[in-house]
Structures are given as C-alpha cells and as structure tokens.
C-alpha cells in the first residue's frame, strides 16, 4: 500500500545536435546569428587553449594551481542567454562564462598569479575570479554556498521590481550539500527568477555520481521544490542554449526557477593536484572524447557553412598570442603591496588592524619562510 516512489524521470537527456553536429530531426533550434555562432566557437576554443596552456605552466612549476574543464566547455556558454544586467554566480569550473561576459585574458591570468593587477588583489587561490563590473560574483571554494546567495539576489531583483535574473553553476557533487537544498527550496517558495545549472560531470574529486544520490540523475530533484527540472546534454551547446532560453524567459516572466542538469564528463583530473587514474578507469574519459563539445560545435558550424580551417587557425593564433601576452605581462607584475593585506577586511581599517599593519610594515620583508612554491 505504500504509494511507492513515482517512476523516476527516465534517463533521457534533451539534445539537439547529434554527435556529428547535425540538428536532430524535429529539433527546434534556437535562433542564433552567424556572428554569435562563431563567437561561441571562439569562446569554446579559448577555454580549451587556456586550459592546456595553464596546465603546462603548472607542470612547469610556474603556476601554483589550476583547474581545467576539458570536455565541459559547452556548459559555460549557457550564459549566452543572459543580458549583461543579469547576474552569474559561477563555481570554479566555468571560465568560459566569465570570458563570454567580457572577462579579459589579462585579468584571468593576473588572477591566477595573484599579482598586483589581479582585480581581486591576489586574495584568492587561482581560478577564483571576481568581476563586479560584469555582474560575475566572486567565486568561493566552499562548494554550494553561492546557491542560496543567487536565490537571494534573484529575489532582491524581483522585490526591487526589476526583471534581472540570476544564474548559478555547481557540480553534481554539490547537490549533496545542505546549501543546495536550502537554496532550491527558498527559490521555489519565493518563485525567485533564478536558474540552477548543475554540471553533472560524473565526478566529485574521486567520488562518482552514483555515490552522491540514489535518484536517477539530478534534474528530478527539482520536484522536491515544486519547479521544473530538465536534463540536457551538457556537450551539446545548442541544446544548452535552447534550454537556457526557456528557463530565462520563464524566470523573467515571473514564473520562477528552473534546475538544469547538464550531463557531461570531467575528462581531466579534479585539479592540477589530482591524478584521476588512481581512482578511475583511464578508458572512461576516452569514451567521452568522441562526444567532445567543441568538435560537435565545429561540425555544427560546418553544417551551417560557417566553418573554415582558416578561421579556426586564425582564432587559435589570436588566442595563443593573447595568452602569451597576458602571461608575459602577468609574470613580470609583482605581488600586491604588503599593506594591502589589511585592506578590505572592513570598509575602513579599524584601529587594531591599523596597528597590525604598522607592525608588519616595520619588519623587514620576509624571505619565503616555508620553502619555495
């Protein structure tokens, strides 16, 4: 007599492009200008190239830490459906979302180096960007904390009678946190204009997705909060854009939140500190290579007659040069000035911090006491 659990939503994942980049029969593709289609291609490429370069740099000991998103790049460009006045709360694995909103490679690399030109003043580890001028909210390491914050912001927009929406990204592992629940639940209750993008890349460090939940996928979780959830092929940029357009329209129209589960795969390690071969079958990532989101988008461009080898080479060259220039610059910029250690704790430096600052400034600048990094 137990009203047993309703059948879980089936495993089906919404997609628009097949593996060869063709729009599936009957697929209603969103409108996308040629320029935008190419811009997105360039964006995808940029993330890939930046990742490759930074991982190399890290291996060479020139960069402390890095997190790459190989294979997940398409998810970053969900933000294409937003207006500049909308807000994005990223996690650490969507640099493309920042680039697409206008975050420069120079700022990006300065942040990685935590140098004096880092827009966030060298305060955070690499890949924790912050760009107030782009409505990109400061990234935090503790996972999930941004979820209720995004809801609060969306709700603030609504009670301020503006139609801004907020988007937040997180991994499938993060759906296990209390903050996920609390944020999703507030969003449902307030019908806040917020979109939750759960990048289901299969892994949370060494922990597989089936260890995060016994539910069939993550989109189903929206049912607990009374709003729609949708599973989308996270390697299919066109499908992502379509789903996002709907979700944004719903949010802007006051119809409330949407949970988007983007099914993808973390082909690399969790971070530059991680060796995934210790805990997973090295063949697993290979299977996902043929579903590469960039290759798929390229084929889509081919289908639209927009692709040419020359254009790609041009992009690669430009990006490569930009990266090189940004690196060359960043490496010669020094660290932030010592006194900045005490700035921004409060709006004004209170007396006890002023005293600590003076004490520190009175000392000789330390040599690195903990061994070189």
């Amino acid at each position, binding site marked *: 007599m137990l009203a047993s659990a309703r059948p879980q939503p089936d495993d089906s994942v919404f997609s628009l492009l097949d593996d060869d980049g063709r729009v599936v029969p009957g697929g209603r593709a969103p409108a996308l200008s040629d320029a935008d289609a190419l811009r997105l291609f360039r964006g995808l490429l940029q993330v890939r190239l930046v990742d490759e370069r930074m991982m190399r740099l890290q291996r060479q000991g020139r960069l402390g830490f890095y997190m790459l998103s190989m294979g997940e790049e398409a998810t970053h460009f969900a933000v294409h459906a937003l207006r500049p006045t909308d807000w994005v709360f990223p996690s650490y694995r969507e640099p493309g979302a920042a680039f697409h909103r206008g975050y420069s490679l120079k700022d990006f690399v300065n942040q990685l180096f935590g140098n004096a030109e880092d827009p966030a*003043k060298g305060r955070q580890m690499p890949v*924790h960007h912050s760009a107030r001028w782009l409505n990109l909210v400061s990234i935090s390491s503790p996972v999930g904390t941004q979820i*209720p*914050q995004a809801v609060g912001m969306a709700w603030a927009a609504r*009670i301020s009678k503006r139609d801004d929406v907020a988007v937040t990204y997180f991994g499938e592992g993060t759906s296990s946190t209390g903050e996920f629940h609390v944020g999703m639940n507030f969003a449902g209750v307030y019908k806040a204009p917020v979109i939750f993008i759960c990048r289901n890349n299969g892994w949370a460090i060494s922990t597989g997705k089936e260890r995060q939940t016994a539910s069939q996928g993550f989109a189903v979780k929206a049912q607990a909060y009374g709003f729609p959830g949708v599973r989308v092929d996270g390697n299919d940029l066109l499908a992502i854009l379509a789903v996002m357009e709907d979700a944004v329209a719903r949010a802007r129209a006051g119809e409330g939140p949407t949970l988007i589960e983007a099914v993808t795969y973390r082909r690399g390690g969790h971070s530059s500190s991680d060796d995934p071969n210790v805990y997973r079958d090295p063949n697993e990532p290979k299977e996902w290579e043929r579903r590469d989101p960039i290759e798929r988008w390229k084929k889509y461009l081919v289908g639209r007659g927009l692709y040419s080898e020359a254009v790609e080479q041009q992009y690669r060259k430009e990006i490569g040069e930009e990266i090189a220039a940004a690196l060359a610059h960043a490496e010669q910029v020094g660290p932030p000035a010592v006194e900045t250690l005490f700035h921004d704790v*409060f709006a004004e430096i209170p007396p006890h911090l002023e005293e600590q600052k003076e004490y520190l400034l009175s000392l000789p600048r330390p040599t690195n006491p903990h061994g070189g990094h």
Partner: protein
Amino acid sequence: MPVCNIIQAVNDALRIEMRRDPRVVVLGEDVGKFGGVFRATNGLFDEFGPDRVFDTPLAEAGIIGAAIGMALYGLRPVPEIQFADFIYPAFDQIVNELAKFRYRSGGQYTAPVVIRTPYGGGIRGGHYHSQSPEAYFVHTPGLKVVVPSNPYDAKGLLLSAMRGEDPVIFMEPKRVYRAARGEVPEGDYTVPLGSAKVVRQGAQVTVLCYGAMVHTVLEAADRVAGEGFDPEIVDLRTLLPLDTEAVLASVKKTGRAVIVHEAPKTCGYGAELSALIAEKALLHLEAPIARVTGFDTPFPYSLENEYLPSPERVAKAIRDTATF
C-alpha cells in the same frame, strides 16, 4: 523622551530605518505577520508589506545566504536568527562568506548585512535557548560584533549598524529584553560602533562587561559600594572593533581588572580582553586579572542560576581583586 524597553527600541530603530531607506528589508523565521517570537519586528509587516518583511522557510543557512545575495544586489537586509543558539546552521555562510566577501573580491563586493539575534541565559531556556556565541564571531575577521545592554544603546547602535558598510552581528540580551527600560529619544539618533561607555565612575577596579551582564555588574557594584569599594564599570557595547582606548585608560587608572561575561570561560571574549591588558597595560596591574564567566560546560537548565555570573560572584571578584 518616552521610556521603553529593548524590544521596543529595536523595533523603533528598524521602523525608522525602513522608512528612511527603501533598501532595508527584514527576513527570518516568523518575523512577518507574527512580528517575531520576541515581537521585535511587530507591526513592520503591516507597515511595509510582504516585499520588505518576509517569513522564510526554516533554514538559517538560507536566511543568511539569501541575505548575502540581497546585499550584493544593493539591498540592506536585516535578517533575524530566532535564537543565537540556532545560528550555527548558518555558520559557514557567516564565517566563510559574509565575513570574507569584501576581502576575497578585493573590495569589489560588499555585503552589509546586519544579523540580529537574541542571546544569553536567564530565561530557563537550557542549552539551546541561552547561548552566548560572541567569541566565535569576534574571532572571525570581517565581522563587527555589537551587544547593547539597554534600550538607548540598542536603538542607536542598531541604526549605526544598518547604516554602516560592513556586516554586523547584533546580539540582543534577551534576559533584559523587557526588564531593561530607559528613556529613548523619539526619532533618529545613532550611537557609533566601537565606542565603549563608562557606566559607573570608580577609582579602584575596572569591571569590563557587556549586554545583560552590565545589569548584573551594576547590582554587584551597588552591593560592594555599600562596603566601601569603588569599582569603575565599562559597558563595552561593541566587541569588535573594541574601544581599546577606553578599556586601557580605565585599567591604567585603576590598576585592576575584572571581566564579566556569560559565555564559557575558555577562549571566551574575556580571554581577549585579558590578553589585551597583559600586552598593553601589564606594568599598571596591581592584581591578577579576574574573569567571572559562565563555566566551561554546556548551558544547563535546572542549574542556570549557578551557571550564570551572579551579582554575588561579581561582587566577590571585585572585592578579591580590589584587596589583592
């Protein structure tokens, strides 16, 4: 100048600021139509409506997380945590997020959220309706911590807190919510954060205290004054930033210090006060620094009067320190 209690003073401050600044919103469990379990938000829902005064689902992490998001958008949220004992589900949001937003973003983002929460014992609330968690927040860089002891300060400090640019933990002494009455000017005025107040001038021993304990200390002072002692009492009002000057000036004058708080002794705020004095006024000291505090046990139910610093215990510490 009408006489009112702390709840009324807090309510008054919220109302004044909500009228003055349309960005101020109030949120929390039961703060809406009901007006809060202690009635501190009474009438605000009626006056300002459901877009500025909202009941939330039962989740402190959501209350603070959402408040942060609202503040990032430009609003001025004043969330209520129903009892300070229930603030811990939001600890990560407070300590890792709220406190660090300005710093970690290099000053780009600020989250001036003022968290109001009733704290402290003496209401027969057992471990979960009596705690005094101020030390956790004082130890967290990026937060200001304010604890008024009376209606005048409660109103003036809360108005300052809401007009500041930093996050504030505003702890309200619930034992004296209604009992501490005093004259409170109508309309607008502020008491600046970071300034302590000498509530009794004296020459012999400095007693540092805050919140509900100020009343216990005043009672103790009355007793010992009758015996010829002459304590000076400093109501700290703001724990961070502390009015170090006022504290040190008094201790240097009297050469003796007694520190009183309800929270457990070990690593409580009194430890910081004592360390400050040992660092900056050691040579003025003529007696060991005494701490009269809650014991290092969870807050009890039946024995709460034994647990809480009593006028007798404070009086004894004053006598012992003065005659050391």
